[in-house]
């Protein structure tokens, strides 16, 4: 029986359902102290007074630290901008200003409240102000020109004043084609922020001994935390050890360091282990949420309705510091055409500094609102031309050999058409359109998405009892990439049951570099590394077994945990016996392998500032939604939701289903429930009481069909699965709501007030 394609339960399911898993917040260390942060209560201003005299004499207080004590370093994922603590000015509400270490969390909190802080507040810069790019607008970072990219000054990218990154692609003839167009269609979409809202708030414990730091945290990307701690403290990365624990959800929000650098610094200063944990409001206010953005798009059409040229302008809110978002400013180039044939396309994206919390990666990153903008626009074009919206898409779909705007030739593009056809089997477009009642609407859209190509590593150890240990710093953020994907791949290779495979917790001292649970990479990248390592370990086993069975290593096979000789059914020896024999003869069976996706060809001259240049290991998708709108209350009900998704190969179909269902639920949340509004640079929603997450009653059971078009490099053909199903949700729901009410939706989330306003 093959394990690949088998819906076995995740190997950590029993532990998790019994409440036995140890999450980041469950970790404690004997002798630890508790840290608490003084965070800026205002978005923008100058620190006029910061007096810790009263606080330091409070009960239980051991140490208080401000910017006066911090290392003279600047840190950042791409661009080095940040200190540990705000120095003279504060740039966003929630920015750390000071930290207290005390015997208990309550004592630390009380002392934070006793710090005398006065800030001369100024009006902050928000996205609308930054977009004007007016020399009179205040600079969020007056010293922006002194900032250096982490990878060295020669890697610096286009940026100026409040623009942290600019990507521009301006091919010839765009303006000329617009002048000669038979018709020009224009649209705009405004998208608000979305908070990852994982249920486990962030926490970290740090220890310091003999020049080295040990950090316990539930990070999606332990090596990134290692590097950030090293940057903030001005030390070598190898002097930081990050140990990972079970992650209570991440969705991109736990990719960068958060509390870890401050905890590490406090551990060194106090000589004790220090734990810092966010309360929910701190977490919400400072989490790198999905950025708010404004997308303007217009398309030139010829007399036959062909899209002969396009312009897409995207303004993204970076917040006060830049993190990963500088790379993500490249995304508009890849998505501007959607999955359709469009002529020369000008794309300019600008990432603006504002006096708001830094934004970052959230599952699907900017794809959610970029596809919403592009696919709303496709509906506008089809409606303007009087052509059926699905048919117009099919008539202009990308085909084999077509390229993205970066010149990348897409592979297996015909899968797109397959996706639209398979979608129709679940929810037939024509029938559903005919059956629509008043205030019911349908939306449809297609997309291409990438599988994150970044490197990973796995070591496979065959134990003397025949079990297998996989040593890696890959993380399972809940997706099942380890507890299903890699477990099943390795178990399959050795012919053992999944429970015979144990995968270690991340430890940056022990394993090779891993790029974290992001962009659906773990099963594809680390699964491939684990597969290659398994092959190497098997070669060693076969050498030893051949000696034991007096046969040729080339004739060895593993079946059901036993190594045997092909054609000689009686000649077999168990995996454990071989591993034990090997251990005491040639030494233990251990093999390692690394993998990263080979670079994809593209045209570097297509754009300036293109830091994230291609869409590796692409997958293709089509989604459809049926909604009903209540014209009295403006409430939207998602009645049906259908997905056709190219997964390469579904290692575990029940796990794949969970990723699709969960991603669509987050997309529905973003599109109709989760309002995270910014007013005068402050969030209006500040807790889970008013940040409204979707509930069980809000989410339909997603209907889906998997398209298995195997990838030649992925383990058993697997491509990225977990991220793409969120990228089309805003697009199809916004299209469906627009269809239902007969008026265009131009904003995400679509609140009941928006619906009623559109209805007039």
């Amino acid at each position: 029986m093959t394990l690949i394609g088998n819906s076995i339960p995740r190997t950590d399911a029993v532990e998790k359902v019994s409440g036995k898993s140890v999450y980041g917040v469950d970790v404690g260390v004997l002798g630890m102290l508790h840290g608490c942060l003084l965070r800026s209560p205002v978005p923008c201003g100058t620190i006029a007074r910061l007096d810790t005299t009263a606080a330091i004499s409070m009960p239980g207080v051991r140490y208080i630290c401000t910017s006066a004590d911090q290392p003279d370093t600047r840190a950042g994922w791409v661009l080095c901008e940040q200190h540990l603590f705000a120095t003279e000015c504060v740039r966003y509400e929630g920015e750390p200003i000071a930290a207290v270490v005390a015997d208990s969390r309550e004592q630390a909190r009380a002392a934070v409240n006793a710090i005398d802080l006065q800030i001369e507040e100024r009006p902050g810069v928000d996205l609308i102000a930054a977009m004007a790019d007016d020399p009179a607008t205040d600079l969020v970072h007056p010293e922006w020109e002194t900032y250096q990219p982490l990878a060295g000054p020669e890697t610096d990218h286009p940026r100026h004043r409040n623009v942290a990154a600019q990507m521009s692609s301006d091919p010839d003839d765009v303006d000329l084609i617009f002048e000669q167009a038979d018709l020009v269609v224009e649209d705009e979409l405004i998208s608000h922020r979305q908070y990852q809202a994982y249920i486990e708030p962030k926490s970290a414990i740090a220890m310091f001994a003999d020049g080295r730091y040990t950090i316990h945290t539930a990070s999606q990307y332990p090596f990134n935390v290692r590097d950030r701690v090293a940057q903030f403290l001005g030390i070598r990365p190898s002097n930081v050890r990050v140990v990972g624990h079970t992650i209570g959800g991440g969705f991109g929000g736990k990719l960068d360091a958060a509390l870890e650098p401050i905890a590490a610094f406090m551990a060194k200063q106090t000589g004790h282990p220090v734990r810092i944990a966010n309360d929910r409001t701190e977490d919400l206010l400072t989490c790198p949420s999905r950025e708010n953005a404004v997308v303007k798009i217009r398309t030139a059409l010829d007399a036959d309705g062909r899209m002969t040229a396009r312009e897409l302008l995207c303004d993204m809110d970076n917040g006060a510091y830049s993190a990963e978002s500088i790379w993500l400013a490249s995304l508009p180039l890849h998505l501007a055409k959607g999955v359709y044939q469009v002529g020369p396309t000008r794309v300019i994206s600008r990432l603006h500094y504002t006096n708001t919390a830094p934004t970052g990666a959230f599952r699907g990153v900017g794809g959610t609102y970029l596809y919403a903008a592009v696919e709303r626009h496709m509906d506008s074009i089809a409606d303007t031309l009087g052509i059926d919206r699905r048919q117009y898409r099919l008539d202009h779909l990308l085909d084999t050999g077509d390229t993205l705007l970066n010149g990348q030739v897409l592979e297996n593009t015909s899968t797109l058409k397959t996706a639209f056809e398979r979608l129709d089997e679940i929810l037939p477009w024509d029938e559903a359109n005919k059956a629509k009642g008043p205030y019911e609407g349908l939306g449809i859209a297609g997309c291409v998405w990438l599988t994150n190509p970044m490197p990973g590593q796995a070591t496979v150890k065959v134990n003397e009892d025949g079990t297998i240990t996989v040593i890696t710093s890959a993380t399972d953020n809940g997706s099942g990439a380890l507890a299903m994907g890699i477990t099943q791949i390795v178990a399959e290779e050795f012919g053992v049951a999944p429970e015979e495979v144990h995968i270690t917790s991340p430890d940056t001292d022990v394993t090779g570099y891993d790029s974290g649970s992001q962009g659906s990479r773990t099963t594809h990248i680390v699964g491939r590394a684990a597969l290659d390592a398994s092959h190497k370990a098997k070669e060693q086993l076969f050498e030893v077994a051949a000696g034991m069975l007096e046969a040729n290593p080339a004739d060895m096979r593993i079946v059901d945990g036993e190594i045997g000789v092909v054609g000689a059914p009686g000649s077999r020896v168990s995996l454990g016996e071989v591993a034990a024999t090997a251990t005491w003869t040639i030494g233990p069976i251990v093999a390692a392998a690394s993998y990263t996706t080979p670079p994809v060809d593209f045209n570097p001259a297509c754009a300036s500032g293109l830091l994230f240049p291609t869409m590796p290991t692409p997958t293709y998708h089509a989604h459809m939604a049926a909604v009903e709108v209540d014209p009295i209350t403006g409430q939207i009900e998602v009645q049906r939701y259908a997905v056709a998704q190219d997964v390469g190969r579904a290692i575990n179909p029940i796990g794949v289903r969970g990723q699709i269902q969960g991603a669509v639920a987050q997309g529905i949340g973003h599109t109709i429930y989760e309002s995270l509004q910014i007013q005068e640079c402050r969030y209006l929603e500040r807790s889970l009481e008013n940040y409204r997450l979707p509930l069980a009653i809000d989410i339909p059971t997603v209907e889906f069909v998997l398209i298995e078009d195997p990838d030649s490099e992925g383990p058993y053909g697997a491509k990225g699965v977990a991220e793409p199903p969120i990228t089309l949700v805003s697009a199809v729901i916004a299209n469906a709501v627009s269809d239902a009410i007969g008026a265009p939706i131009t904003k995400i989330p679509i609140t009941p007030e928006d619906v009623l306003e559109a209805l007039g």
Partner: protein
Amino acid sequence: MSPVETPTLVNGRSVAINGDGTTTLLSFLRDSLGLMGTKEGCSEGECGACTVLIDSQPVTSCIYPALAAQGRTIETIEGVHEGADLSPVQKALVATGGIQCGFCTPGFVMTLTGLLRKEPNPNADEVAESLAGNLCRCTGYSQIVEAAMSLSEPEEET
């Protein structure tokens, strides 16, 4: 505690509640009893990760004063298994794949345990409504609802 008072039971074991009026039941369970399976997600009774049963009723222990649980019967995730076996709700969640990161899972187990004790054969709408106080950010809920429905034989299918 006077000898005539009803004992406070946590997972069948008699305990003495310590702490003052500000101590939450969640803090008592985790910090005093070392029952770490009950999780804190929001500290304001919104997310449901801290759900336990008090006299078979699901409550959010993060906003429930420990002293108010005096003399009551408290069940946590550590107490729902049946001998060495998982409980039916736990087995069903494993089987339907209603578990991802798992941080919310103990709360869901407790709410569904309470629901099925009160209403052994709920329909899917009743299950979803009973989960209005439990947030799950990973699964999109369907496989959790299906887990409960696999234990239910409702009179009318919904």
